[in-house]
Every structure is written in structure tokens, then in C-alpha cells.
């Protein structure tokens, strides 16, 4: 993959080794909070674009591609996220770190 161009984040995440659990380790437990959340920091600060804008001010979450950094749980001002590590070694497998 040549680097002198924009590479969509999904494509960049594909360069990683993965073993994604079908069961999500993170979820938005209170979608109402997202509707009321003006700044939506998760959209800007998640390094893996797991949070994307939905309709009517909602936010959609997908755990695929999550690099397990913990940023979303720290920046969400409304405590709307339930956050766990993936079980049994699932998730991203860093080879360089």
C-alpha cells in the first residue's frame, strides 16, 4: 500500500493482525445521551473511526477496528459508554506496538 496518498482509515486498520470477537466489548448504553451531546468528542478522538454520525443526532458504534485504547470512555462527557476489554485475547494483535 503506497503511503503518499490518503488511505481510508478502514484500509489502514486492515494492515493490522486481528482476531475480532463477534461479541462487542464496548457499547453505547444510553443513545439518548448522544442525541443531547453537542460536541460528540468520540467522533473526533477515536483513532479507529468506530463512532460515526447516525440520523437525528445519534451516533453509531462498531467495535470492529477498535484498537482498545480507552479514549472514548475518557472523553465521553455523558458516561454513555459501557467499556470492557475484549475477552480471551480477542481483538487487535499488535506485531510492532
Amino acid at each position: 500500500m503506497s503511503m503518499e496518498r490518503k488511505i481510508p482509515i478502514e484500509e489502514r486498520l486492515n494492515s493490522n493482525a486481528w482476531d475480532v470477537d463477534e461479541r462487542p466489548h464496548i457499547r453505547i448504553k444510553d443513545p439518548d445521551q448522544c442525541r443531547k451531546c453537542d460536541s460528540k468528542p468520540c467522533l473526533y478522538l477515536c483513532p479507529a473511526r468506530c463512532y460515526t454520525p447516525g440520523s437525528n443526532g445519534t451516533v453509531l458504534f462498531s467495535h470492529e477496528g477498535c484498537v482498545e485504547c480507552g479514549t472514548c470512555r475518557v472523553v465521553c462527557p455523558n458516561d454513555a459508554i459501557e467499556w470492557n476489554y475484549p475477552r480471551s485475547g480477542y481483538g487487535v494483535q499488535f506485531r510492532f506496538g
Partner: protein
Amino acid sequence: MSIKFDAIIVGAGPAGLTAAQRLASKGLKVLVVERGRKPGSKNVYGGRIYAHVLDKLYPEYVKEAPVERWVRKERISFLTEDSGTTIEFETNNVEHKSFTASLSDFTEWLGKKAEAAGAVIISESPVDSLVVKEGTVVGIRSGNDEVYGDVVISAEGINRLVLERSGLAPKLEPQMVGVGVKEVIKLGRKVINDRFNVDDDEGVAWAIAGFSTHYVPGGAFIYTNKDEITLGLVIYLGHGSKVDVPVYDMVEEFRLHPFINRLIKDGQLLEYSGHLTPIMGLNASPPSLYGNGYLVVGDAAGFLLHGGIIIRGVDFAIESGRVAADAIIKIHEEGGKYDGSSLSLYGNMLEESFVMKELRAFRNAHRALDEPRLYNDYAKFINAFLKRYFDVDGTPRKIFSTFKETKGNLTILDMMRDMTKVVTNL
């Protein structure tokens, strides 16, 4: 499981594994519980390790450890959209002070050292919580399993869910941490040697401020491994609301900056990662670093020295793991109990080590580093100044008038104030 361990360690990072190696080598029965598939598979950093601690603890590292390149050149740049000002320091002394390495490889190596000393490492097991009985930590819980130990070390890193869930650390606040995003790009050894002007085993450590984070407090970095470079940035989350593009786009804009892009021509992306990092040193420590039945080491304890240009976490993690182990060994040999008062030995020994000496000296570093002008006005000013100064066109350019012309919104008073902050706190 019904076996009882002398010590249980949560997290197989540099801190936990050093404690494990040390404890096991003294004959203690040690269990390390790690959530990843193997030590190293969940760890992320920027790129270089300061070797002073290894000289003492793992002297064989020179031959054995997965060193990539010895850092011979230090660069600091202030970058704008169209200009850049760089300071480069280079030394001819073949002093081995710091080296670049893959943290996954390095952590895996520490894991082998701990196992060779007799520690048991259980992988693929996220610890959910501590087991607490009558106010004393007596073990850990992972799924349906409980394992008991005389003492538990939290070496779980900065995203310290276990401590939080046990009420031993408050929830992380945005201003305590930064998020790092990083790309590993393969270039090949010869290309790196040519483009960075280094010999085979020599490396570059490079800190870049300004445009690289869209002028938001934080900074970007580039390190050279043997065959690949690591390129990334850290954003202080306390300033997260100032970020105008998602961080995954920001790191890409940095990579595509003309001055950076030409260095990675024909490169190939090998990995994309993200991780939190503590940025306030001791101000992000849990209220207590030890208590009945437990102690805290490494990033989980806030032991990271963030001096703006220099970021040191691995050596602090290793040293605090070493100190924790030595305190436990002493209490173990005396047949003592691990309560808050006996474990204060850990606190005292930390004060004697470079961990507390250095972290206390830099206790207020974040006050200086939290100043948005450092990343914005100054980065722009220094480039505007030099651009104007070097732009010879027949009109006189005296230094002071060029300074006044290019300083933008900065007042002399701001500059004096910021200078004082930097000089007194860093």
C-alpha cells in the same frame, strides 16, 4: 484454581514483567495475568527506550534484547503548513544511551526473561476486578475464576480499569491523558540510512510540534527502526475539543506534509495503532500507590515523564517494577504481612530511586506544557520570523523589526511569562 501465589501481577507490560522476573528469581511463586494473546500483543508506544535501567537490571540486554537502532540523532521541529524549523543534535560518542525498538518485541523478550526465572504467565485473561476481603486485596477475578495471592501488583497500564473498579483510582479525566496514534511504515534499511543520513545501527528520534497536531497541545514523533519508521502523534485530551479533524485524519495529514511525505516515498504501511498515555506525571497517580495487599507500578501509577520533547515511560515502568519486587522480597523474607504500613517500604524505596526523584522534579511540567501558545503561536512565529529574515529582497531586515513584524498575536509580556513557566517547570 486453588493454588495460592506469593504474588499476582495484573498486566504483562514492562513494569509487571520486571517485577515478575525479579520476584521469581528470588524463588517467590509468581503469577502474571495478561489480557493479550502473549506479552507484547497489546502494548503500544512511540519508539525508544532509555537504556540506563537495563544496564543495571538486564545487563545481558546488549546481546539479547531486540534493539533496532541506537539513537545517534535527536531532532526537534516546529512545523507549519509551508515551513519548518529544525534543531538537530548529533553526537559522535558511541555512548549507548537509548535505542529504538518495537515495544511488542521488547515486551515479549521481557516475558521470556520472567518465565526463565520461574514466573507463570497466563495470557488471554483480562482481569475484571480485585478480590477484596475485609479491606485487604487477596486476589484477582477473571471471568468465573478467582486466584489468590499474598500480594497483588497492578501493572495494568494507564487504562486502569481494575483499579477504578475496585475504587482504588478515580475515573481517568481527559486532562490526565493524551491519545497517541501511530503508523509503522516499512522502508528498508538502506533507504532509512540514506534518507535520515545515518549508518546501519544508528537511529533518529524526532519530535515535531505545530501543524502536526493542528496546533493543539500534544506533539508528533518519528523514530527509525532498522527497516521501518514509526510515525505518530499524541493529542492531550484536555484540549480534545479544539481538534478540528478526527485524529486518524490528523496523523495522515502529518504523514502527507511535503517535508514528511518525501521521507516515506514507496513506504508500505505495516500497522496502525492507538493508545492512551499519562501526561501529568504524579498528578495522575492514584490517591495511594499501595495499600492492604496491593501496590501499583508503571503507567497505572502515573510514572511517566513527559517533558514535551522527551517521553519516558518504559524506563520508569521497569524501575518501579524492580522497586516493588524488592520491597515485596524484603517483607517476604521477614515473614511479614502485606498491609498498608509494611508496604510503605515500597513508597520509601521509590523516593530513593530515580522514579520519584525525577517525577517530583518535573511535577509541574504539565503546567508549562499545557500552554496552547507553545504549540500554536510560537511554532508559527519561529517559522514566520525565519522566513522573513531569510527572504532577502533588498529591503532592510533587522532582527528586531522582523521580530515585531512576525510575532503575530504574541505580546512581549506573553513571551516572558511563557518563558518563565518553561524555565521553572521543565
